[in-house]
């Protein structure tokens, strides 16, 4: 089951760097031990658009997780329990990525046929005669 998720969470701004890293490594290990891959991006301190739990700033962290839904549920549970985390959102992205890939492929095929000025290859799919030069 290879689904891709993006989990973005906000940590309170008065948190120390090392605690933050500890938290992130705990989350990462919980994912990798269950057999998924994870990529982390720390965005850093940003102003929040509205006050969350009396905070106006927060440290944004993004995790890109590949794995099953159970993994993500576990991550979310941990985030909910951790006190410094004030908000999180999980977005499933594999369908979106698939769609983007398809579009990219169509565009590449289109470009290839138009620059090569060759007859349309059958594998290009739905690409009718692109203005034969």
């Amino acid at each position, binding site marked *: 089951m290879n689904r891709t998720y993006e989990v973005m969470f906000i940590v309170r701004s008065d948190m120390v760097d090392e605690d933050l890293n500890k938290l992130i490594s705990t989350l990462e290990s919980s994912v990798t031990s269950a057999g998924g891959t994870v990529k982390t991006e720390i965005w850093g301190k940003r102003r929040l*658009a509205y006050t969350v739990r009396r905070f106006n700033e927060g440290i944004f962290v993004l995790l890109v997780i590949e794995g099953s839904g159970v993994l993500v549920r576990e991550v979310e549970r941990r985030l909910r329990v951790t006190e410094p985390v004030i908000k999180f959102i999980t977005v499933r992205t594999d369908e979106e990525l698939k769609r983007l890939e398809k579009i990219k492929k169509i565009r590449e095929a289109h470009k290839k046929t138009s620059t090569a000025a060759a007859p349309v290859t059958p594998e290009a799919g739905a690409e009718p005669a692109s203005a034969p030069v």
Partner: protein
Amino acid sequence: MAEETKAPAAAEATGGEARPAERSERPDRGERGPRGPRTGGGPGGPREGARKYFRRKKVCKFCVERIEAINYKDVRLLAQFVAENGKIVPRRLTGVCTPHQRRLSLAIKQARNIALLPFAGRAQ
């Protein structure tokens, strides 16, 4: 035959239901008058906004620049489609096409949830 039976019914009936068959056969809809907005791509409500008839054809920014991925994370892109008070701008003002507007609106709502965009700000 069908036309005749429709004609009296149309004259009596009120309410702006779409009668596409009728419309194609009968070019003179003048007397039937404005019974609600015309279906199909008419100008975006000349009655609603006291605006001129045809606002010069706005193009969908995403279609033109071929931006495919509308992510909740790129706040700068999303903020262009959000009004001063935080509301999502309708597509008749921005000229965005429907599928992109739907994705945009989803992304804006996600961004609001993660405090990247406000739900309601500076509304006076």
